């Protein structure tokens, strides 16, 4: 058996594939690429007015491990706060999926994608937990 069953499951039935409108309320996008293999990944989060990530979607053009990693990350971040989500590390992803060493960079890609989405969020809505605009709209 080569890949762990978890990788295969996330690869064959990836969760949360797709995208939100880039300018939808509370949506932030992280886009990253791994020069080592030339693969690219887009990960989006949708943050509600309480600062909780209520949904996440991804699109990955890459290997099975990269698809599994991004699928797993979108599952993990749902229900977390921005700050909690920011603590996800590639080592946790690699451990959960039992990735072999040559596939570590694929999990790094997923870590960097969620970080990039969070950075985008903070840029758009400020450093706080709650989208600035939604606050104003309240």
């Amino acid at each position, binding site marked *: 058996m080569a890949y762990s069953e978890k990788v295969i499951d996330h690869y064959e039935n990836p969760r949360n594939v797709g995208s939100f409108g880039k300018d939808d309320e509370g949506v932030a996008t992280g886009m*990253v*690429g791994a*020069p*080592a293999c*030339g693969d690219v990944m887009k990960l989006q989060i949708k943050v509600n007015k309480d600062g909780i990530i209520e949904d996440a979607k991804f699109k990955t*053009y890459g290997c099975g491990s990269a698809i599994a990693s991004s699928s797993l990350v979108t599952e993990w971040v749902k229900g977390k706060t921005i700050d909690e989500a920011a603590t996800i590390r590639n080592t946790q992803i690699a451990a959960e999926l039992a990735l072999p060493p040559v596939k570590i960079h694929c999990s790094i890609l997923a870590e960097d994608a969620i970080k990039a989405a969070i950075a985008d969020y903070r840029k758009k809505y400020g450093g706080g937990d709650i989208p600035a605009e939604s606050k104003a709209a309240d």
Partner: protein
Amino acid sequence: MTPDFSRDHFELLGLAVRFAVDAARLERGYRDLQSQVHPDRFAAATEAERRVAMQWATRANEAYRTLRDPIERARYLLQLRGYDTEEESNTSMPADFLMQQMEWREAVDVARDAGDVSELERLRGDIRRSRDEMLVMLERALDADANFVAGCSLVRKLRFLEKLEAEIDSALELTEH
């Protein structure tokens, strides 16, 4: 005792340390060197000479392989200048560049699923053009401007185009069956 491998690849093949190389001169330099050191020249020589010949011919092949390919050559030249291209660790590329990659990858997927050979070939044309433009920029960055940071970033970008071409090739391979 190991052979003297202190010369860099460019010197070994008789070229100036520049990104722009004359393909004919590169090939000539390689062949001249191989005709001196190739193990076929030493098949009837002593064991020690046969071993040294193998080491040198290995070294000549490595130099030629590196300098013949533009991405490898740029990476090697940057390394000589003390710059690391960070292809393993640097995942942050400009957003519009990544956007374009996503679009291309998606277009390749769609064309593959549809078995659309002419679309795949059109995409390949686009990607090759983009690659050629980047190679021109790379030459300017490395040879004219000595802007090595820009050189590193271009090498990273080129890796994505390389992958796209490989994806198109394997998609075309699929349509053959």
